[in-house]
């Protein structure tokens, strides 16, 4: 089969671009892809940029990381260093540390690349976390995107690993102590802990193998996994098409936005350069991980106020909070280091539980349809509350991981701060849940109020009768639609038990538990305003501005504003 027989003469290319496109398409069939994707529509919102920041900072990590590998020597062989800076001259250090100094002080632009790389890693994790928050609070994880939520969650964990393995490479005092802590945590694992420690370090800590091993993980295995997951993540974004915020004309059956080419090519492509530019600015102006101030790894020295990178702070915090009494020796003289194991494992287990949230919510909502229009967080008070509770838990742990800095800066007793956090880590999330849910319900009521009575204009009018009222301007239909277009889910109905009371019925018991959980989710709810309610409210004209309960009763006898929150 030759091209001349398959090519219709009508599209015979004449221009240079046409000829090269023809050449390319004959060999790749790229025309299909261009037809499919060139004008693909993406919705617009600032919060959709968070995931983009994560993607772009990952690209920056790959670019700067490649630069760094050219000069880094992943070896723990010791030699005496001669070179800049003066404070390090003549010290015995590993090749890893020496090459980190050389790439900082002798390779022009080397320090800049190191600093951009480190900042990009911090921003990468921060944008993943905020992107996850956006996805969670807007319910973007609902069908059909549950798998993509899990892929994103796995990316968060691999990002943590990438950060930890990279941070440890320079073989300086700080990162060495970080590895010492990791070793202590690994040793606390029952039965196999000691062997896991040997597995990781190839012998007694720190040994002479850990840096080359971390290097291979950091520059090959983990980036490859991240890259594969990112590809899968983006593929699903294309398959599902992007979610959109509620608004006029936005339905689960359509996507409203701008075409990929040229608008998003310019905007998203431009945004990559903006992210790279900001990271360069940070790398240029803000010193980070100045390893020559810490010195080469030596098990002896340590400084107070040493924190890990921010995304590891929650683990540091939980290690600090756990009281030592949890360690015990069991029958058979086996040591259970629960004072280390519990704080290291519990937050990770909680994170994994969090990853399963979409499935739990679908079950208690009895919701199995596709969603492409996002929720406004206020319209899902319990979900928003749960999200804030999780966030509070990890933020409190992160602060607990900085308890020594808090003590120094605010002249407080470290013991009292630690005790405060030991209590607050349990009370805080509960409080965050409660107050967030209340705020959401309040905002929903405010929405109802606005829809029913319109905006306050500040114009006071006096009637001939002497009565004063404030004129309210009704919402336009776009404003109103945003506030009424949602579903206030109801708790699941409890099915009737099979058989008489007292008989064992596992299915019924399980259904009962789910119904109970469902009640926790949806017993407090605010229904959206219906046209009937709005009409009833309007028929009473300007009376809406008058205070007094009797008026409300007149406005909407069945669904008065105060009565719509139905509680059990």
């Amino acid at each position, binding site marked *: 089969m030759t091209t001349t027989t398959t090519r219709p003469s009508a599209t015979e290319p004449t221009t240079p671009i046409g000829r090269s496109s023809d050449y390319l398409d004959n060999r790749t069939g790229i025309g299909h892809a261009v037809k499919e994707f060139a004008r*693909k*529509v993406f919705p617009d919102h600032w919060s959709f940029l968070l995931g983009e920041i994560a993607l772009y900072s990952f690209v920056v990590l790959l670019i700067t990381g490649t630069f760094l590998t050219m000069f880094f020597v992943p070896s723990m062989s*010791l030699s005496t260093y001669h070179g*800049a800076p003066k404070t390090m001259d003549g010290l*015995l250090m590993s090749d890893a540390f020496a090459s980190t100094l050389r790439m900082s*002080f*002798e390779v*022009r*632009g080397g*320090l800049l690349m190191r600093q951009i790389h480190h900042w990009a890693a911090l921003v990468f994790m921060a944008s993943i976390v905020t992107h996850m928050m956006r996805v969670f609070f807007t319910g973007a994880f609902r069908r059909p995107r549950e798998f993509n939520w899990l892929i994103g969650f796995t990316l968060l964990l691999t990002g943590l690993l990438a950060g930890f393995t990279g941070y440890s490479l320079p073989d300086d005092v700080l990162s060495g*102590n970080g590895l*010492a802590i990791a070793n*202590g945590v690994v*040793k*606390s694992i029952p*039965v196999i*802990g000691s*062997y896991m*420690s040997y597995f990781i370090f*190839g*012998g*007694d*800590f*720190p040994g002479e193998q850990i840096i080359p091993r971390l290097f291979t993980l950091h520059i090959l295995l983990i980036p490859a996994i991240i890259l594969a997951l990112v590809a899968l993540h983006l593929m699903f974004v294309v398959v599902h098409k992007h979610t959109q915020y509620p608004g*006029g*004309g936005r*339905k689960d*059956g*359509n996507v409203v936005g701008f*075409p990929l080419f*040229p608008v*998003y090519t*310019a905007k998203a*492509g431009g945004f990559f*350069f*903006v*992210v790279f*530019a900001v990271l*360069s600015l940070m790398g*240029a*102006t803000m*010193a980070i991980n100045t390893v020559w101030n810490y010195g080469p790894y*030596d*098990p*002896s020295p340590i400084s*107070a106020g*040493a924190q890990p990178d921010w995304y590891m702070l929650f683990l540091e915090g939980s290690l*600090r909070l756990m009281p*030592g*009494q949890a360690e015990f020796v069991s029958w058979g003289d086996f040591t259970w*280091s629960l*004072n*280390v194991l519990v704080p290291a494992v519990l937050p990770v287990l909680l994170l994994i539980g969090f990853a399963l949230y979409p499935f739990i919510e679908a079950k208690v909502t009895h919701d199995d349809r*596709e969603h*492409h229009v996002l929720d406004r967080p206020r319209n899902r008070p319990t979900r928003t509350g749960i999200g804030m509770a999780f966030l509070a838990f990890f933020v409190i742990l992160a602060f607990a991981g900085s308890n020594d800095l808090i003590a120094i800066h605010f002249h407080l007793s470290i013991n009292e701060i630690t005790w405060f956090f030991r209590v607050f880590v349990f009370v805080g999330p509960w409080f965050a849940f409660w107050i967030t849910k209340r705020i959401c319900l309040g905002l929903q009521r405010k929405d109802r109020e606005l829809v029913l009575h319109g905006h306050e204009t500040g114009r006071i009018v006096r009637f001939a009768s002497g009565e004063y009222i404030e004129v309210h301007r009704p919402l336009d239909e776009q404003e*109103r*639609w945003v506030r009424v*277009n949602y579903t206030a889910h109801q708790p699941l109905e409890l099915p009737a038990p099979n058989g008489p009371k007292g008989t064992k019925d596992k299915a019924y018991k399980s259904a009962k538990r789910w119904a109970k959980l469902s009640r926790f989710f949806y017993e407090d709810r605010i229904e959206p305003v219906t*046209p*009937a309610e709005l009409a009833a409210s309007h028929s009473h004209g300007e009376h809406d501005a008058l205070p007094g309960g009797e008026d409300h009763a007149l406005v909407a006898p069945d669904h008065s504003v105060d009565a719509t929150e139905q509680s059990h």
Partner: protein
Amino acid sequence: MSKTTDVTVPHPEGDLEHFQDPGIPEHRHRMADTDPKADKRAERQVVVLFTISVIGTIVALWAYFAIRPDGTTAGVRTSTMVLGLAIFFALAGIGVGAIHWAKTLMSDHEVVEDRHATRSPDDVREIAVQKLADGIKDSGIGRRGVLKGVVVSALALFPLTIAVPLISSVGGDWNVGTFRTTLWKKGTRLTYDPTGRPIKASDVTIGSAVHVIPEVTDEYRQSGEWISEKAKALVLMVRLDPRDFKPFAKGKENWTYDGIIAFSKICTHVGCPVALYEQQTHHLLCPCHQSTFDVADGAKVVFGPAKRPLPQLPITVDSEGYLVAQDGFDEPIGPSYWERLR
């Protein structure tokens, strides 16, 4: 939209219960859409932004060649700053320029595209299932039970050929018994960390804290092995007024020398060096997780996440007045592990 049974369009019509979707908001014209001057101005701005990028690149190249490292921290900082700022302008010019172009000059009319349900349509599913069934039939896998079993076993077992050698090699000699041993033994001199100079008991003043390593040869202190041994053998030694000590534990009455007492410096929590000594309270504080140990009371834990006291090194002086170990540690140092007491 077709065959999208799962994507329900809520409230297609307004009724008493549901409001009607008002549709896509009316398009608002931008200045550049209606005013040719604004259009020209926006174009000029984009041109300026991309020009800034070109200048940034030129400055970055100039900075690379012109600013040479002079080996000082300040010199490296200057080079980093100039090069980084130039790169910032080179990148930001492109980024901001492209976004400004898109926002002011490209079409901002919203486009609507239909979505289709993610699930494949029923006919596609039917064909897919049929194809799989055909394949299964072709392979005859359903009838050949033994074959199936062997294939599954072979595939499940072969990764062991890689995994077993890998796992069994990465752990070195797997002799986790080394956790118990340190360089300290009967008669080992206590020396200053990091110089390795022996310590005379008379040189240690009351209230001072000394970081101690066991005496080894200078060559050994240049080896990688030393770092791992040092990580276990570190000792922190303090001298108290002997009257400040709480009664010693049974069997440890003679482990100190004239108020000088020595403990392992490796925290019993997760193994950080317990390096901060508070003279007034006789407390040792681990800067990592704030475990606090009372030196006057056998290094018992008074606060924090550690459970056990720091192991004590029994010490005395030799004939020349230098401090020496009476013996090694009588328990494994550092963080707890499963078979610690076995």
